[in-house]
């Protein structure tokens, strides 16, 4: 039986069909080698930590690279806009607006109470009262 038939359809076919495969393929030069890399977390940690931390990177690249990074961060900031704390929608309109809007949406007394409570809790989230101070 030909070699080609034996390895047909296997992952190693490409590597073995090449005449020089065993010598040219780095991973095949040692036929009985294998390496248990561990779990996904271990593999990732190994690769991710195989250089200095990102914090150090920023320092090392201070200057134009750092500026570039800052620019990139700025691009990121678009998505992370305000970190969801002090967006214009909540904070800009102020406590009164929220209260008004909530009060409008309901005519019953109980609902008003609930709305007021809700608006209070919103106020707490939104800038933690900093907007009001301003």
């Amino acid at each position: 039986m030909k070699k080609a038939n034996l390895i047909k359809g296997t992952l190693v076919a490409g590597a073995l069909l090449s005449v020089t495969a065993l010598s040219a393929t780095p991973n095949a030069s040692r036929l009985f080698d294998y390496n248990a890399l561990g779990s996904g977390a271990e593999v990732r940690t190994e690769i991710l930590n195989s250089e200095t931390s990102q914090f150090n990177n920023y320092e090392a690249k201070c200057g134009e690279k750092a500026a570039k990074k800052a620019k990139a961060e700025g691009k990121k900031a678009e998505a992370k806009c305000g970190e969801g704390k002090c967006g214009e929608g909540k904070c800009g309109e102020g406590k009164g607006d929220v209260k008004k809007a909530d009060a409008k949406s309901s005519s019953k007394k109980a609902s008003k109470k609930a709305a007021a409570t809700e608006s209070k809790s919103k106020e707490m989230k939104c800038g933690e009262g900093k907007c009001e101070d301003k």
Partner: protein
Amino acid sequence: MLLKTETYNQQSNFVQYCRDGKEVAILGTNPERLPHYRRLVFNIIKDTLETTFPISFKYIDTEIWDEMVYNYFSSHKCNDPQVWRMPKEFVDFCKAENYTTKFNLPFLNDLLYFEWLEVELYMMEDDTYPQVNSTKDWLKEKIAVNPEHKIIKLEYPVHLEKPFEAANKKGDYFLLLFREKETGKVQFINLSVLFTFLIENIVLAEKTLEEIFNDILYIFGINDLEMLRSEVFKFLEDLKTRGFVLGVHC
């Protein structure tokens, strides 16, 4: 229930805005509030991709990564409703868009695929384990293995090194991944070409180990059968302790 054309158009415009951020007129919306919807949706996509591909995210230039993610989210219509499967479509998208060439990241397809596979294997449905007998002689039997596994071939050793170092080491790399039954953790084993051939044949369960040995001797031009047996048995014993080899089929 069919939507009214106008409703459908409104929803489509809104979805498209969430995806590409290009301003559109949507009835009854406050233009100042609209960006927050996009921000919230886009953050989920970004976060999911960054979590699924931590190595890619770390080593690929931020601007390139952001462009890839933006292009993907704005132009690719995801087919799967499950968010955790969405990164698979990102892998396919990057491949289809030929980003390896466009961004000069030769390792990109391998790296994304390698990172995705852990999620896929971790999340896969439970497979039926075969009935095994662990006491019989391996040589004359068909060996049974953990069915929750995958063997892949990579062009770049992205599982071993930092991506940009791996980029200079193009070759044939073989990787076995399997999910541990008890913990659910995905284990990675880097394999030689010979062991890959061995495992592939074992998985097929068409031949006994002895028959596979004969093929190996012929294909790899090995003369020393005893050495082959010794090395393979050591390997299989190790895989058994790790939970990949289960025993022999009953």
